[in-house]
């Protein structure tokens, strides 16, 4: 996977994760183009599209679009389920997640993503294990506050 973007129906970027080195300018350009392309598509259209030399896999959850760019030989359907698994993780952690959760707890969204995907590859597919890692971290946080 080359990158993952979360953006709202209004085209506001909520989360971005880049697994290839790109300049900020390029990132912005890609984001702009891609958000436009994806938002222009109708609901019943297929979730995959060719874009430049990448394959884009996207899915909409409520007001949020989750959009992944994968390489040619990567598997589209499993990427779709990566998105879904990530949504499930967020949902489980926040308890029926909504866009605002991600806006205001962006760091958690990133931490969860880092536990699940690393360097663009799936690191841990078990929901339990991912959440356990996050909860442990949260616990450390509590401890350190108690300690201070």
């Amino acid at each position, binding site marked *: 996977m080359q990158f993952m973007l979360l953006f709202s129906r209004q085209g*506001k*970027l*909520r*989360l*971005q994760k880049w*697994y290839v*080195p790109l*300049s*900020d300018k390029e990132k912005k350009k890609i984001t702009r183009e891609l958000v436009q392309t994806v938002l222009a598509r*109708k609901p*019943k*259209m*297929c*979730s*995959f*599209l*060719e874009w430049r*030399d990448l394959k884009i896999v996207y899915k909409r959850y409520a007001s949020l679009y989750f959009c992944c760019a994968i390489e*040619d*030989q990567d*598997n*589209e*359907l*499993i990427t*779709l*389920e*990566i998105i*879904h*698994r990530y949504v499930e993780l967020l949902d489980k952690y926040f308890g029926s997640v909504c866009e605002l959760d991600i806006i205001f707890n*962006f*760091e958690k969204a*990133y*931490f969860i993503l*880092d536990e699940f995907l*690393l*360097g*663009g*590859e*799936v*690191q*841990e*597919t*078990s*929901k*339990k*294990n991912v959440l356990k*890692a996050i909860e*442990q*971290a949260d616990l*450390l*946080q509590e401890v*350190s*506050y108690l300690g*201070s």
Partner: protein
Amino acid sequence: MGDKALDGYSKKKYVCKLLFIFLLGHDIDFGHMEAVNLLSSNRYTEKQIGYLFISVLVNSNSELIRLINNAIKNDLASRNPTFMGLALHCIANVGSREMAEAFAGEIPKILVAGDTMDSVKQSAALCLLRLYRTSPDLVPMGDWTSRVVHLLNDQHLGVVTAATSLITTLAQKNPEEFKTSVSLAVSRLSRIVTSASTDLQDYTYYFVPAPWLSVKLLRLLQCYPPPEDPAVRGRLTECLETILNKAQEPPKSKKVQHSNAKNAVLFEAISLIIHHDSEPNLLVRACNQLGQFLQHRETNLRYLALESMCTLASSEFSHEAVKTHIETVINALKTERDVSVRQRAVDLLYAMCDRSNAQQIVAEMLSYLETADYSIREEIVLKVAILAEKYAVDYTWYVDTILNLIRIAGDYVSEEVWYRVIQIVINRDDVQGYAAKTVFEALQAPACHENLVKVGGYILGEFGNLIAGDPRSSPLIQFNLLHSKFHLCSVPTRALLLSTYIKFVNLFPEVKATIQDVLRSDSQLKNADVELQQRAVEYLRLSTVASTDILATVLEEMPPFPERESSILAKLKKKKGPSTVTDLEESKRERSIDVNGGPEPVPASTSAASTPSPSADLLGLGAVPPAPTGPPPSSGGGLLVDVFSDSASAVAPLAPGSEDNFARFVCKNNGVLFENQLLQIGLKPNTKPVDPTVDGGAQVQQVVNIECVSDFTEAPVLNIQFRYGGTFQNVSVKLPITLNKFFQPTEMASQDFFQRWKQLSNPQQEVQNIFKAKHPMDTEITKAKIIGFGSALLEEVDPNPANFVGAGIIHTKTTQIGCLLRLEPNLQAQMYRLTLRTSKDTVSQRLYKHPLSEKLPLKAPPVLHLQPAPWVWREYRTQFEKGCSRPAPSKKESKKQRHVFIGLTQGCVAMLDGDSSGLEVCDLWFEQSPPLRLPACHGGFEDSGGTPIPLKLLQPHSVQPRQLVSEQPTPAVLTLVFHETLGLAVILGLHMRNNPCLGSLEDSGFHHRLGKIPDGSSSRPGLVPCPVFPASALGVLISGYDSQRLGGLQEVDGRRLCMTAVALFLCCLRMSLVQGLFEAMPMASKGIACYKC
């Protein structure tokens, strides 16, 4: 923020706020330092936010990277798994080269250490993967690799998942090193697919066991060919069958996640099956499965099925199975609402097309084209054009298809497409009449696309005569039809139409007056566009002054185009870019050409045209007399003819220039046989064995013993293979072994000679040839030639002392062939008669075309091939300008008449400098970029490989320039020199050194005459009708220019004129036109003389 009083908590808070601001879309250019400080905090939360900031905001070449690396190093060494995890995540997120330098050695150790926690192992594996992607050179392979492979056996599925990604990437680059992963991956996969859906607990996703891991394992296996070990292979086949079987089982859940995960594994399995391409059974099953998906209600599945089938179509095992779904795919094309799905359908139709269904597929694509999205029209047009060409059984269908394309989507028909239809029509005479009729009909539509006017104009200009018999398409009607479109067209199309008109003048004399009227009109003669104006002026002049014969030569039908890869295909490749999918598709297509067969190749014209035809041989340059009947085919007859004529077919596989040299050895036994920058091959009668290594500059000798088994025609070819500077070199040289090398001279008295002469009176035993001398008839030189040829020269045998007679015996292993020859010179007529009689008629027949007829006139060896060649103007120009910048010649020199000789040969341009007393080569340069096509020169002028000919092959001393026009050496004089050995190289000698006209080579518009495409691109074959001017026509043109009626051309003045002259002369390269050149001389010089430089 720089305040030291800020405690850790506040730092964290503010860094976090900065991050938030950044994520809202604002630029943040401070706070980095504080974030780096946070990294070394002992508090987990502070550290965590610090790392997050770095991951999100620090790009890989930040100067802070050293500080960050330090913090990471500490955390990695902390043995605290949480901290290690954070550090590894950070490395994986930033992934810069500096980080790779710092940690690429460390991470493998963490990865394979026994006491590393599973979660750290997972991070370490993917972290290493990221570093390997950024800087593969910095990740050292070592004994850790085998231990990584064994992670595939790990109990923790998370570890296996992460490790599989790493191994896949590493295995792609180092397949040998990770070979053992195949069997491990197969057994792991087998355990997963056979497990019950609850076995894997949390790794089961919607009743699908470990779908991510399965997909990754299947990906890993695609790095390798099918396993060799039959047990592993069997197990893998079982797995794949199980996966295919599961697809048929009823779903365990109605959730889309279940079907997605299941099908993700299925598609990956199908990819592997296609990759292996070895199990017909699995391939057909895969195809059937995809066939089901083609009609699935999920758009995603239909999309993926179309995509996968595209690659499946390339397998010979499943190509037929894919074809059975044609109706479904066509239906998808018509009914899919999503353009990206329709696009896939187009791709698949293209991939599954072969001769059996081409007509149907092309028809469907054409009808889809009418409503297709604009974004993909051009691609569809290209695909239709390619399919129509490739699978045309009947070229009328092809012509119809392309015309339909132009009608439906004219704007999207690129130049390549309409160039191609013209190339094909010109090369296939069975379709020319049909094409003319069809374009004529198509042009009658009230509104037709400009591309149609181009195609129509071109085809009617070439083949309008084929339909002129029908009163409905009489010449005048054809002309009026075309001309009715003229004013609606762009300048390039109009220029093309003007060329069509002049072609009509030749084809249909009855419309000449009408056309002249059109050309004469002010809108043409004084057109603001220089190109149109120039064409109008020249064509008008040409049509007025030139005789019918000249017109017929000049405006002759275009010669066939050499076959080449379709330019459309190249365009499609370019358009699609280098993605893997297309590569697959391309390779598929190439393969399918083999499977299905392309159109029969149109015979290339080059070989036929380069051998001068007897009628063209006006000056006797080729000097190979035609055979009355074919030579006996006994031993492949014709070799010597091949050798001594300039046949390109014999030259092709051999080193350039060797053929020229070859001819010299007919009467000689030593000399340089071949020479290039690396190697010189000489020839001596007796030599010794060779050392395997040859030092630079050293000379070695290799003995070759040759025995003549029977009379032969093929000269043996010497293949020399050697390494030079690491690269492999291959040189093939024809050994100059001809039949006459086995001559034994035989002395005999007059009486014996004539007695034998009479014995050999059987007509088959005698050959005779009468030919013109091309060099001074010097007795001594002629004698030397005859002796060199191998026979004895018999003095005082012939009653006429001027005649030469010779006798010899050709020794072969089986027989001895007596051979007598008699050469009778006629000094008044400058002719020779050569008679040969031998005891074996095959030999006679061979000697009928004997090299002697070449040799006796003492013709200098051909310096360069006479075959005209491509020509690069830019190169030519720069070189000329270089020439111009040379220091001015000294006074003594300047007295001499300077000449510049431009020889066009195979990929080579020679510029010779000298005067009537001798010549030297001053420049030689070679064609490199795609050249122009000089239309006049049948067969020669396409982009050949552009093989350089070494300078030394030129033999300046042997060049005997004949100056045809010598006139007072004023700077404005155009001197024309006919160069005998360069043959048809027309030489433009002029005082170029200070000539301002050099500056305007490009702008003078002669590109058109040289076949350049009007849009200025130079890489395409000239399809614009290029009038060909023999020199006489040039004279006509030049003399035409001095009138006052040149309108706008006056301001361009003589520069244009002069360059046109250059251009035109370069067009005069055909042998048959050389005579015209002579006629043109006085006029040409007159014409140019009136131009004051």
